Every structure is written in structure tokens, then in C-alpha cells.
């Protein structure tokens, strides 16, 4: 019997048989029943299950029962509901990835495939992902709370305040460990190191997160001179981010005394705290960027201001020169008056000249009459009246008869011409008699 080939073993050797559902059972029906080995049976069942595409990719919801964690690092448990149960295996790698530990009584949603475990003749769920059930519930709660808080006005656009352009102090609520705080630090160190950061640390994950975040926010609210607050957390599952949908946290965000930026998770994660914030940042790093100006651009802005100052001053100088030019032109416009003045001066000069000329003319007349008088006194005029002048050969005019002797030559000058004579005789007296 044990040597008899089983139906299973024989099957590949019967390719001539018609394929189809009936093909496998027909020989059995025709002849003696085939007796299968257990191994063969289990292998056949496994093969059957493996060929079912639905069972290879299945979502199942149920309650975890009696989980065990053997030293291998795997986890085995029973998944059940009110009527049924199925065994489930969660291997070490998947368990580590799941981020949660199945616990007795926990409602979970599992994804995996159904396979037979041949050695024990059981089929079970091989789990590749497991999440706490109620995610659907979470979504419903999220929507309900969103509507409620929206109705309370917490999300209204009108409440949103502008973020300070030039913050001096920024408060940050996040976990002091992990990448988020480091990222925020790096962004601000690169972008706007002028700012002072006030960290109010908080856990941002787990059941204690919501009240911790509220306390951390309130510590910041008690600070003075904060310009902006950032509430940040890295990415995670819906459950991880759930505290940012907690009503206490959302209300605390809405009560922020200064503008608050919320950057939680990744771009696609939108929490209710995001809605309540003055500004929603897609990520924590983006929150840091939205909170600050860029110092590199600032250097450019400052440089431009300086250029503008220089341009303005040059403009003033040019303006000044234009003004001076205008003044010069205005002065040039006054030139006709100068001409008039010159004309007046010229007139005055002419009058002066004329006056002078008249005076000169009068003088000339006086001089001429004086000259005429002088003329009458000249020897020529005397000679004209009949007098003569006697000159010795030495040229002297003879006034005394004793100065000459008989026989001496004498020149007698008359009005017209002269007479050369010789002295006959001289007399020292009797001049007056001779003239009368």
C-alpha cells in the first residue's frame, strides 16, 4: 500500500487526462479509492490555498488572543471574533516594522496571506502588517471633532495672524531628542542665526503626549517677548500623530497669545492642530523656514538699501547742480537790467563828458584871450607900433649907449626886416627928449 503511487504522485504522469475539475476525481470514482499520505494531503491543501489569489492578499479584523513571544523573536497569536478564530503568525521582521506589540484583547486589523502549515496541518494567517483597529473610528472621531471645533470658530481664517517678519525670539514645542529639533536648529542656524530659540520640550507621542504638549505650550505662553511659536513633530502613523488631533491640544494652539506655526508629520498629514494654527507648515523644517527671513536674502536687501542711499545722495548732488544751473540761468535772465544799468552809466558818462567838454571849451576861450593879451605884449607887436630893437654883433639887445663905441657895427630890427649900420657917435643921456 505504501508503495502504491498515490493519486497525487501519479497525477503529473497522466498528462493525457483531460484537465479540469473533474479530471482528478474521475479515476478515483472509476477505481478503488486512493489512499493519501498525510504529507501529501497537507501539501495538496497548501497548494490549493496558495493558488487562491484572495487568500494571498487579505485584510482581516479581529481580536488578539493569547499572543506568545518565543525566543525566536516571532509572535504567534489567535485572532478571533465572536464566532470564529484563526491562528496568526507575525515574524520578527514584521513585528519590528509594525511599531506595536499585539496584546491580548486588542482589536487589530491585519494584512497578510493565508497558508497551510503542513507539519501541523493547520492553516494560519501570515501577518505582514498589523495596526490597532479603530483607525476607522479614529477617522470618524477626527471628523466629528473637526466639525465641532470649526463650529466653535477655532479654524476661522479671520483668527489667523500674520507671522512676524523679523522675529527676535521664537518658542518651539517639540521633542528635544530626535531629528525634528535638530532639523529646526539646522534650518535656523543657516537661515536666520540672529534669532533666539526658546525650547519648551515635550513628548509628542503616546498617550501622555497631549497633556504634555499643552503644558509645554503654556510654559511658552508665560514667556514674554516671544514673536512666534512653532509646534512640531516628525512623521508617523495616524495613531502617532493622534495627540495633535486631541481637543486639548487643538484648543491650546488656538489660544496662543502670539502667532503659532504648526508643522506636524509630512505634507500629507493634516491634523486639527494645523487647522487651529495661524500658519500650517507641511513639515517641521518648513515651519522653521516660514518663521524666519532668509539671512542670505537679507544681506542682499541691505546691500540694495545702501545702493539706494548712494543713488539718492548722487541724485541730490545732481539735483543740486541742476538747481545751480537753474540759478545761473535765472541770473542770466537778469542781464537786461544790467544792460540798462550800463546804459544809465553810459548816459551818465556821456553827460559827464559833455560837461567836461564845456568846461574845457570855456577854459580854452579864457586861454585864447590870455594868449591874445600876451600877443599884444610880444616884441613883434611893439615893433609894429614903430619901435625898433638894436642888437650888438654879440647878439645882445642894446639898452645903454655907453656899452657901444663909435665905429661899432649895430643891427637894427624893425617890424619888417633889419638894418645893419655903424655907430657915428654915442650920447649917454637925452633919451626922454629924443622920444617925445
Amino acid at each position, binding site marked *: 500500500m505504501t508503495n502504491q503511487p498515490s493519486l497525487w504522485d501519479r497525477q503529473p504522469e497522466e498528462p493525457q487526462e483531460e484537465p479540469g475539475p473533474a479530471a482528478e476525481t474521475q479515476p478515483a470514482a472509476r477505481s478503488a479509492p486512493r489512499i493519501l499520505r498525510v504529507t501529501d494531503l497537507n501539501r495538496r491543501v497548501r497548494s490549493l490555498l496558495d493558488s487562491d489569489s484572495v487568500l494571498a492578499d487579505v485584510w482581516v479584523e479581529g481580536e488578539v488572543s493569547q499572543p506568545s513571544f518565543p525566543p525566536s523573536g516571532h509572535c504567534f497569536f489567535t485572532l478571533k471574533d465572536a464566532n470564529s478564530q484563526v491562528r496568526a503568525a507575525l515574524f520578527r521582521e514584521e513585528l519590528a516594522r509594525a511599531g506595536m506589540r499585539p496584546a491580548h484583547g486588542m482589536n487589530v486589523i491585519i494584512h497578510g496571506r493565508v497558508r497551510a502549515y503542513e507539519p501541523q496541518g493547520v492553516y494560519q494567517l501570515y501577518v505582514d502588517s498589523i495596526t490597532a483597529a479603530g483607525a476607522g473610528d479614529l477617522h470618524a472621531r477626527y471628523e466629528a471633532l473637526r466639525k465641532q471645533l470649526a463650529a466653535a470658530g477655532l479654524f476661522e481664517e479671520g483668527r489667523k495672524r500674520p507671522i512676524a517678519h523679523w522675529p527676535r525670539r521664537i518658542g518651539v514645542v517639540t521633542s528635544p531628542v530626535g531629528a525634528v529639533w535638530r532639523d529646526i536648529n539646522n534650518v535656523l542656524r543657516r537661515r536666520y542665526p540672529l534669532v533666539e530659540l526658546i525650547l519648551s520640550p515635550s*513628548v509628542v507621542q503616546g498617550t501622555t503626549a497631549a497633556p504634555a504638549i499643552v503644558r509645554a505650550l503654556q510654559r511658552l505662553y508665560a514667556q514674554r517677548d516671544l514673536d512666534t511659536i512653532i509646534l512640531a513633530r516628525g512623521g508617523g502613523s495616524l495613531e502617532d500623530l493622534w495627540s495633535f488631533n486631541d481637543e486639548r491640544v487643538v484648543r491650546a494652539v488656538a489660544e496662543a497669545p502670539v502667532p503659532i506655526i504648526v508643522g506636524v508629520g509630512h505634507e500629507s498629514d493634516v491634523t486639527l492642530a494645523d487647522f487651529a494654527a495661524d500658519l500650517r507648515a507641511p513639515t517641521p523644517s518648513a515651519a522653521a523656514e516660514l518663521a524666519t527671513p532668509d539671512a542670505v536674502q537679507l544681506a542682499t536687501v541691505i546691500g540694495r538699501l545702501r545702493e539706494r542711499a548712494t543713488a539718492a545722495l548722487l541724485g541730490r548732488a545732481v539735483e543740486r547742480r541742476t538747481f545751480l544751473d537753474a540759478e545761473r540761468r535765472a541770473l542770466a535772465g537778469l542781464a537786461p537790467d544790467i544792460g540798462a544799468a550800463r546804459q544809465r552809466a553810459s548816459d551818465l558818462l556821456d553827460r559827464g563828458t559833455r560837461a567836461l567838454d564845456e568846461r574845457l571849451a570855456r577854459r580854452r576861450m579864457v586861454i585864447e584871450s590870455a594868449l591874445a593879451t600876451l600877443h599884444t605884449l610880444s616884441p613883434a607887436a611893439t615893433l609894429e607900433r614903430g619901435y625898433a630893437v638894436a642888437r650888438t654883433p654879440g647878439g645882445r639887445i642894446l639898452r645903454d649907449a655907453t656899452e657901444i663905441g663909435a665905429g661899432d657895427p649895430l643891427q637894427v630890427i624893425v617890424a619888417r626886416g633889419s638894418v645893419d649900420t655903424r655907430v657915428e657917435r654915442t650920447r649917454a643921456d637925452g633919451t626922454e627928449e629924443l622920444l617925445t
Partner: protein
Amino acid sequence: MIDDARLDVLTDEELARRPFDELVVALQQTVQRLEGGNAGLEESIKLYRQGLRLHGACETRLREAELTITELGRRGVTGAEPEPADEG
């Protein structure tokens, strides 16, 4: 804010310690007054000098700035247990 009267008496060192935004605003105002054209030439030159000082102070602040961090309630932090490093 920094007004003109204080600008005149502030030393460069004191100026460099003023909050950065004040310096930039003062610089902006100075430039705007220069551009306004109401100031005479001498006043313009004075404003320009003032602008240069403010610009220098801004540059110094930018160059020498270092991020300062204060942590609140260090002792009272109940949530100091490390959380798994976030990937975001």
C-alpha cells in the same frame, strides 16, 4: 526704535548690539528720507553717513550672529524619555 537723535550719540559698538530688525528699519527710514528729497545737500550727506553706519552695523550683526538656544523647565520635563527618532 532708533531715532536720529540717538543715532548720533550711539557708538558703532552700541549700534551693532541693537536688535537687527531695528537697524534694518532705521536704515530703510534713512534711505527713504534721502530719497524723499526734502533734505538739503548737507542734510543729505549727513543722512548718507548715517545710512553707511547702519548698513555696517547690519552687516556686522549678520556676519557675527550665532543661534542662541534656551531650554525651558529642564528639571520639570517629565517627557524627557527619548522618543523614537522621527523620520520627518
